[in-house]
């Protein structure tokens, strides 16, 4: 809502020296979101001039300029060059003189142009900062609007600050100058001159016939009729200027007056050409198949829920959203039917959304308009048409009004103080509530049988006697009965009134008190371990990145994920940012590889990045989530079904390594990051959370089929690590032999220990034994190691693989694995034969299980 300060001043007696910024500051403190204050940078001299003479002078560039002499109230005429032609001798125009600065910082000086010295220029509406008035030329004042030499800045209120206010949904009344003026009047503690305080001269009957079929959706419908207007009359300049300053273009007197009254009072107005109406106006819901061509020349299919304005010809408007083209007023219109109505906010909001049509009218109706306004607004439109378009107002008037009167609400007199935690006296509370327009009456506590109402749904006073509410009645607590004003339908609950009282009391005057929470337990085990994983990865040289969780077929294709892979079954969005990425990621790598691609594209060849994030795994059976009532807590079953309807969303960690892990340098040759680094990072993550995973070779996209490690814990797969498939590297533009990890961090952490129990360790000497085993090449080292550990028994302290050898000496299809075993007993020094027996037992398991042969020498 754009609010010119000059317009505001008409209804609020603001101190003369306050600026737009001052007013903005006050309104902000009162809870209006003033987004910007446009301050005019215009400085004079800017004067009214009368055209004395002009000469048309055609130029070589095809233009014709006018060389004009102007009376600007001095002895000598002022000579200027003008490019516009929409004026005649004797017209009053606005002349900017050398030394002035026009809006936008355009400094004016005498300058040579088209062979003359132009001492200033004649101004257009846009040049004066009034916006494009559609005149395609300079501003021509009405005869008598001023005299030559008058200060045009003052005359036209050119130096006006404009406040731009973002109106929150609860403050629909502030979508009008009237509403903002009310706030400004309260903020400055001055009287409001209510522009709706008009004399009604309608008879209340015999107006244009109207029938409302849906009183729920349309509770008020008022019409007035003005006959014999000159539709071609120009709107007065002050009105045009205010429309322009408010961001609307003047169009014609009929349209302008309707818009002006909407801005002034907040009541959307529709005008009909009476000659184009046929029969009774009926307000009803649409029938299937009905269509309407709206004012924007679009034919719209109507929905059965749409509330329509119709006549005998069918639909002539979507109520509260946009009128139809067939009954629109035009230059030929003489008799105008004015509609001012009240529509249900939800009906309008839905229609506006359905037709993707947000109009000035619908924005206001959605936020609910003062239901008392229609008669006054229709009167105001009629008055303005009579005055500026020469019409005659008929006393006949249609008034349909079934709108309920605002219900009084009873609340504890100290409720505002209790919500604020501040000392707000009863007098203050009453004063503040009164100033927002409420009617406040004190109600003696003992006059009311039932207690009330720090909470919800304070019942109307009339109901109180019959209703038992809660049990927190405070003996002798004073009560207030508050009736909200017609323009504040948002004031329903005790807290709504508390807010009004507290904001006017001043949020700044509320004390600051840190509440004492009961003792907490710090981070959860999972939260702690996630942090440690991140810290460990950073210690290992990885950099954390974030990326969007959106993915699509292109990512799965690039990753080589097969068509029937479960990862392609995704949670999809109805309205994704990009149609190519309609899915929520089922694997972190889909998006992490894109991030790697972007970094490599920006020249980072050696990359070690990680990310943690949720993946979204649809359940086998997808059910819609219910929408239980908000009148009380949903049942446990309802809550469970809310949770059950959602996809599984475990937290994953992903890693991508590209290029060199160690660069080549003065120490020697560098080392590329490879599959083993990826697997090691996965092991690192597992060990940070205290889990010892089982690792085995598997084939899985996007990894290299021979270089992918599967990690599992207690038989459950928790992720994979290894080198990426060459095609995947290529598809994502990554260096060859890039590698990646993805682990289900939630599952890993869940498998970790609750806490660690310390074990004593032996101070007896260690016995070291090395063993080299020749096994078939396809046997996994981890399995051999596990077999050794199993066979070695309790005396084994550790086993570590330290060499892998393949070559002629051991034969085709075989490999030699060398392990270092350490034995130790808790209570004695081991004897040689004990160690030898344990070693032999360890080897025997590998012999039995894999046909291992000890390599000697």
């Amino acid at each position: 809502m754009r609010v010119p300060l000059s317009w505001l001043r008409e209804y609020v007696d603001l101190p003369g020296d306050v600026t737009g910024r001052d007013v903005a500051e006050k309104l902000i403190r009162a809870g209006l979101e003033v987004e910007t204050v446009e301050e005019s940078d215009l400085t004079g001299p800017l004067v009214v001039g009368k055209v004395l003479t002009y000469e048309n002078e055609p130029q070589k560039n095809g233009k014709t300029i006018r060389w004009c002499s102007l009376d600007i109230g001095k002895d000598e005429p002022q000579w200027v060059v003008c490019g516009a032609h929409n004026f005649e001798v004797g017209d009053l125009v606005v002349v900017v003189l050398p030394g002035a600065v026009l809006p936008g910082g355009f400094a004016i000086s005498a300058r040579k142009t088209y062979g003359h010295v132009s001492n200033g220029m004649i101004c257009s509406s846009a040049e004066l900062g009034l916006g494009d008035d559609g005149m395609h030329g300079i501003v021509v004042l009405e005869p008598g609007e001023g005299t030559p030499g008058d200060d045009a800045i003052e005359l036209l209120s050119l130096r006006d600050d404009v406040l731009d206010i973002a109106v929150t949904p609860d403050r629909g009344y502030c979508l009008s100058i009237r509403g903002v003026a009310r706030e400004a009047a309260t903020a400055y503690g001055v009287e409001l001159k209510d522009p709706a305080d008009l004399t009604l001269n309608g008879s209340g009957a015999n107006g244009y016939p109207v029938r409302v079929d849906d009183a729920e959706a349309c509770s008020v419908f008022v019409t007035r009729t003005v006959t014999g207007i000159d539709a071609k009359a120009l709107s007065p300049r002050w009105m045009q200027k205010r429309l322009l300053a408010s961001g609307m273009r003047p169009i014609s007197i009929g349209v302008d007056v309707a818009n002006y009254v909407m801005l002034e009072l907040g009541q959307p107005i529709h005008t009909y050409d009476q000659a184009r109406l046929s029969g009774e106006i009926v307000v009803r819901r649409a029938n299937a198949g009905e269509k309407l061509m709206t004012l924007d020349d679009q034919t719209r299919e109507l929905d059965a829920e749409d509330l329509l304005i119709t006549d005998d010809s069918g639909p002539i408007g979507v109520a509260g959203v946009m009128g139809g083209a067939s009954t629109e007023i035009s230059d030929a219109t003489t008799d105008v039917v004015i509609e001012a109505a009240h529509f249900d906010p939800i009906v309008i909001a839905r229609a506006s959304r359905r037709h993707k049509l947000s109009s000035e009218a619908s924005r206001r109706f959605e936020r609910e308009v003062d239901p008392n306004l229609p008669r006054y607004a229709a009167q105001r439109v009629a008055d303005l048409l009579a005055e500026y378009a020469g019409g005659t107002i008929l006393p006949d008037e249609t008034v349909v009004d079934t709108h309920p009167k605002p219900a009084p609400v009873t609340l504890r007199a100290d409720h505002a103080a209790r919500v604020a935690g501040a000392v707000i006296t009863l007098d203050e509370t009453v004063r503040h509530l009164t100033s927002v327009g409420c009617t406040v009456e004190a109600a003696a506590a003992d006059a009311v049988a039932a207690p009330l109402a720090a909470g919800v749904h304070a019942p109307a006073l009339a109901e109180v006697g019959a209703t038992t509410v809660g049990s927190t009645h405070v003996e002798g607590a004073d009560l207030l009965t508050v009736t909200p004003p017609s323009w504040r339908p948002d004031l329903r609950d005790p807290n709504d009134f508390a807010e009004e009282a507290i904001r006017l009391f001043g949020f700044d005057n509320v004390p600051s008190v840190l509440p004492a929470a009961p003792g907490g337990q710090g981070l959860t085990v999972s939260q702690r371990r996630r942090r440690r994983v991140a810290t460990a990865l950073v210690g290992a040289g990885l950099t954390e990145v974030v990326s969007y969780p959106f993915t699509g077929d292109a990512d799965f294709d690039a990753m080589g994920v097969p068509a029937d892979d479960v990862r392609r079954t995704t949670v999809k969005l109805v309205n994704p940012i990009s149609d190519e990425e309609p899915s929520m990621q089922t694997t972190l790598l889909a998006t992490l590889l894109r991030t790697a691609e972007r970094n490599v594209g920006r020249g980072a060849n050696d990359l070690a990045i990680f990310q943690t994030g949720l993946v979204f795994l649809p359940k086998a059976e997808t059910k819609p989530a219910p929408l239980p009532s908000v009148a009380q807590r949903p049942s446990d079953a309802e809550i469970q079904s809310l949770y059950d309807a959602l996809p599984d969303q475990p937290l994953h960690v992903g890693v991508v390594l590209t290029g060199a892990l160690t660069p080549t340098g003065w120490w020697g040759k560098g080392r590329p990051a490879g599959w083993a680094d990826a697997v090691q990072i996965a092991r690192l993550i597992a060990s940070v959370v205290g889990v010892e995973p089982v690792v085995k070779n598997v084939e899985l996209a996007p990894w290299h089929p021979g270089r992918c490690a599967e990690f599992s814990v207690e038989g459950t797969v928790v992720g994979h690590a290894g080198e990426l498939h060459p095609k995947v590297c290529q598809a994502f533009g990554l260096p060859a032999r890039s590698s990646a990890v993805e682990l289900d961090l939630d599952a890993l952490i869940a498998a970790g220990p609750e806490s660690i129990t310390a074990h004593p360790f032996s101070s007896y000497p260690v016995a070291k034994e090395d063993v080299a085993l020749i096994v078939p090449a396809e046997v996994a080292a981890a399995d051999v190691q596990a077999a050794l550990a199993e066979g070695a028994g309790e005396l084994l302290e550790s086993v570590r693989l330290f060499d892998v050898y393949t070559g002629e000496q051991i034969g085709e299809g075989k490999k030699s694995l060398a392990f270092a075993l350490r034995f130790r007993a808790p209570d004695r020094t081991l004897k040689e034969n004990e160690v030898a027996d344990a070693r032999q037992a360890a080897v025997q398991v590998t012999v039995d299980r894999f046909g291992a042969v000890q390599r000697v020498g």
Partner: protein
Amino acid sequence: MSGPNTDYDPVEVTPLHAEEVERTRDEALTAFSGAADLAALQEAKTVHLGDKSPIVLANREIGALPPQARKEAGQRIGAARKAINDGFASRLAVLEAEHEERMLDTERVDVTLPWHTPQLGARHPLSLISEQVADVFTALGWDVAEGPEVEAEWLNFDALNFQPDHPARQMQDTFFVEPAGSGKVLRTHTSPVQARSMLTRKPPIYVICPGRVFRTDELDATHTPVFYQVEGLVVDEGITLAHLKGTLDHFVVSMFGEGLEARLRPNFFPFTEPSAEVDLKCFVCRGASVGNPDRPCRTCGSEGWIEWGGCGVVNPRVLQANGIDTDRYSGFAFGMGLERTLMFRNGVEDMRDMVEGDVRFSRQFGMEI
């Protein structure tokens, strides 16, 4: 070590003269101090302290002396021997020190050279700041609450008093989950975690909820469809707006420094009533830039205050929908965008830097913000 020489004929032994002993001592000391290196010192040791050295020989003769002469000779020779041993030890210490110094000197390196083990990586600053926020509140005894990102529409909106056709619900630019009408959305704020907290915990509830949220904005310098928020919720007996202010003031000081404070401006949110915007006193100029063109402040645009987030007293309708007894309990809630916080707190100028995953962005922070 030499034992008594049994072959020795004590009768032939001439008692040692004092001058002789002193000369032997002085010769030894001169030889040691003249030794230029450890090898020369070792040689001199053999000569002056070895088995055949005069002092050792003289020592052996003591036994052959008449008893009345033994004591004096023993003392004299013992003293000389000690002097020679000390002389050797001190010279040895000097030469060894010199040797070590020379050796260490030759091992001098350029410690500014780089090494090949991986450099420290970096956390993303959004993670760091959400952890810092969590730490501020866990220190107050609050819990860190979390929830899913694909969320039930009821928890994201209805439970928070966003009615189906209310403009506030439309303002949120929601991503809806297929099929249309599934009742599922990408959460538009972290507030459903508050609803979950109320549904699953019993008051008193003190929770802080950092998390990723989604709105259908196009990415530009100040907007992103995926961003991070942190919200706090308290539900307890007697909770007031004053408690909200106290908490926010504490939060501001924890994140931006001593002496700063929060300011509330009335606003509208369906979740809270009364509702307010939270401004924080500019931590750079502390208000000194206001109306002072000589000292403009980029951080607050010379406004003295920085818009930070939204807050309010929890609307009793929200408590009711989540099963909290409104006669007994009241609450407050607040929420901020973490990207925005980083933008003004750490001078990040472009939202895109935070979401594109360029490692250079994270690396400039390392492990700290």
